[in-house]
């Protein structure tokens, strides 16, 4: 049980190695640069390749190529770089490419405050590319969880053939914390299901629309196709409206059908509570201090901390809101995940956002006061 003092970015790099990552490409940007550095140090020593690309478009392009050639791939950036990834994220979705994308969020828009944290990219992540298809996004609250969720992100990417986002924050990425990585409970490592060599292969073959196609790596046993264009299950271009719709339905269904399976959250429910906190990421830690304080004062308070932001774990959120009068959603943005909570809120329940983007953390007392928690 070795205790260490490491930052979130290092935990992610080590989680990637643990998950079997074999390829990393990135471009320097605060607060994600140290992750590039850790991967450049770790990959070559762990049978992998890590490279600084000429720009972010190349970073993610290299990763898509490497993933389709069979390597588990990861890239990392922050706001300005994520914006440049957008078109290629669509490519990874349409090509059903397993890929882990780390966004160490910083305050934006644009260059914003390079060295300051925020959670401003939540809805951007959900709707990150033209066409508007679903993705998976996980959000760790601390360094240990950054390690765990990295492994889970790789698993999900392989399992669902989709880009999986790890939404962290400068406040986790560059904050050193005490951790014992050996004590972090990790899931079994999942690898993509590869097509059998003896059978004919179609790169996007599914029976029912939610089925995830098996994969054959470039350079593997089959001759295979990958395309950015609307295609059929063979990967051949098509202009048939029925097939086009069927593929779109497939990209959506394979994630929607797995929503409950992907759902990751921590519940801390109190019998009879009328006040609920729904939080995620670094802000969930301020929320948990607020919860404890309010309970000490005699208030009934429940808390739901969401680790899998997308697909939205609706079942858990709806269950948590049962009997609740008021739900507080604190975020280091101007009210983004609150939109998801509002659409799921039962009639008569109020949803209060506690929001700021002044580059500082939301404090527990700020959340209590601005959330009207004692009202």
């Amino acid at each position, binding site marked *: 049980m070795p205790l*260490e003092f490491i930052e979130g970015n290092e935990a992610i790099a080590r989680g990637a190695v643990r998950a079997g990552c074999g390829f990393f490409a990135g471009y320097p940007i605060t607060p994600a640069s140290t992750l590039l550095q850790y991967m450049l140090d770790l990959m*070559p020593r762990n049978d992998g*390749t890590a490279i600084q690309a000429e720009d972010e478009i*190349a970073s993610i392009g290299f990763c898509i190529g490497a993933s*389709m050639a*069979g390597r588990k791939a990861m890239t990392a950036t922050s706001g300005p770089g994520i914006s440049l990834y957008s078109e290629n994220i669509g*490519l990874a979705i349409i090509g059903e490419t397993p890929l882990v994308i780390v966004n160490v969020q910083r305050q934006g828009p644009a260059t914003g405050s390079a060295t300051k944290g925020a959670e401003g990219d939540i809805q951007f992540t959900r709707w990150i590319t033209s066409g508007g298809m679903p993705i998976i996004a996980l959000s760790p609250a601390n360094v240990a969880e950054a390690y765990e969720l990295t492994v889970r992100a790789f698993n999900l990417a392989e399992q669902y053939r989709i880009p999986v986002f790890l939404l962290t924050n400068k406040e986790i990425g560059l*904050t*050193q914390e005490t951790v014992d990585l050996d004590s972090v409970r990790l899931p079994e490592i999942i690898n993509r299901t590869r097509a059998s060599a003896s059978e004919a292969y179609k790169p996007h073959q599914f029976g029912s629309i939610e089925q995830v196609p098996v994969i054959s790596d470039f350079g593997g046993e089959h001759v295979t196709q990958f395309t*950015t264009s609307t295609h059929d299950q063979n990967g051949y271009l098509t202009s048939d409206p029925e097939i086009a719709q069927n593929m779109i339905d497939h990209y959506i269904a394979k994630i929607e059908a797995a929503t409950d399976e992907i759902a990751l959250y921590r519940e801390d429910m109190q019998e009879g509570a009328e006040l609920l906190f729904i939080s995620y990421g670094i802000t969930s830690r301020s929320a948990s201090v607020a919860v404890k304080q309010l309970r000490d004062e005699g208030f009934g308070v429940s808390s739901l901390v969401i680790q899998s932001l997308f697909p939205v774990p609706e079942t858990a959120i709806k269950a948590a809101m049962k009997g609740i009068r008021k739900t507080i959603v604190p975020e280091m943005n101007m009210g983004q995940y609150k939109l998801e909570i509002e659409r799921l809120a039962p009639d008569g329940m109020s949803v209060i956002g506690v929001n700021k983007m002044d580059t500082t953390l939301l404090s527990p007392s700020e959340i209590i006061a601005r959330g009207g928690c004692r009202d």
Partner: protein
Amino acid sequence: MTDQYHETYMTDALGPLPCCPGCGHERILKDLDSALTKMQIDPRKLVIVTDIGCIGLADRYFKANSFHGLHGRSLTYATGLKLANPELTVVVLMGDGGCGIGGAHLLSAARRNLDITLIIANNFNYGMTGGQHSVTTPIGGLTPTTPGGNVERAIDICAIGAGAGATWAYRGISYDKDLDERIIEGIKHPGFSILDIWELCTAYYMPRNEYNKKELYKLIETSGLNSGLIVQSERGEFGAMYRESAGNLPPAKDISALEPVFGHKLKEQTGVVIAGSAGEKIRSAASLFSRAGIMSNLHATQKDDYPITVMTGHSVSEINLSPVTIEYTAIDSPDYFVIVSEDGLKKTAALVASLGSTTHLIVDEGLQIPDTAATIERLPLVRSAKKAGQFTIGLIALGALIERSEIYPTEALRESVRRHQKPGIVETNLRAIDLGSELAAD
């Protein structure tokens, strides 16, 4: 010639190539087919990567792996494929349009010299979107977007590639008799190879500019650009060099595990801020201090704040120590505040002014601090650092703080230094801690 794999690498399963009659792309693709057929590359180990544009329709007409990506980005996928699997033969088909929008990748691929072959189907315009001008449209060229004739100079793709370090570059036209042989040479070249092949877009550029096969031959002369094999040199191939350098890396540093062997006196989370200047090793001192906390059975967090221009201005570290897990990592009202120099004071002046009486403030004797309710302790930090040596002021201050606060034993901080510092500076560091302790004891 053997036909181990295919008598032709093009398939007619999808019908004829979707090119306009006479389109130069078709000629280039036939020559690529001829080259591949002569080479008999295992189709499973061969990838045709295409860019966007009419040329981007071509990949799936080959009996090989095909990868059709975004406009201008084909070289990036090719790079990922080749790095991930060096066994692959990777051929990229790109238009002149792709060379413009993806110029950065062209330069980088040339510099990198990864073993990829780039064939540019250069028809001087964007065929697919209606014949608009591209980076290779000749001066005077008529296109829908240069109605008065193009006035932007055409780029010399081979010269640009060569300038960036390409090790093999050829320029020819789609009518070249031996184009398939040139393609074979390009593929066999152990590094990045470029074939800039000029050709006709019969739908747009050719009719608009009263252009034909003869003109195409002439253009290569009148353009003043070189043709034929322009560059052929040898330089290490990127993939091989990367793998070799990876093999020569020293072993990774051991994980620095922290054993909690000391005790502590904290009942609750305690915030410590240390503020100084860049170059004073404030972050490093703070890290030794935090680790000593962990070695004393405490939880710790540390955040460092400094300007992007790291060698100048302030350096402020915020440390939390706590007997239980730390949730909220910001320090709104520090329990201990240490300011060692003017830069640190300037950065934190507003916070200093707002401090309450619960903060113990340790400052260098020479600093003019704003009015504050904090308990102030002035110490000769700068003077002591002159005695103890460069880079010691942070540890002197934290040594004093630990003596004063008794958060954990001074020995934990000393042990942290022994465990984490390079042997050469351990003695100086320990001396700094002792000096700090003495200051606080005085």
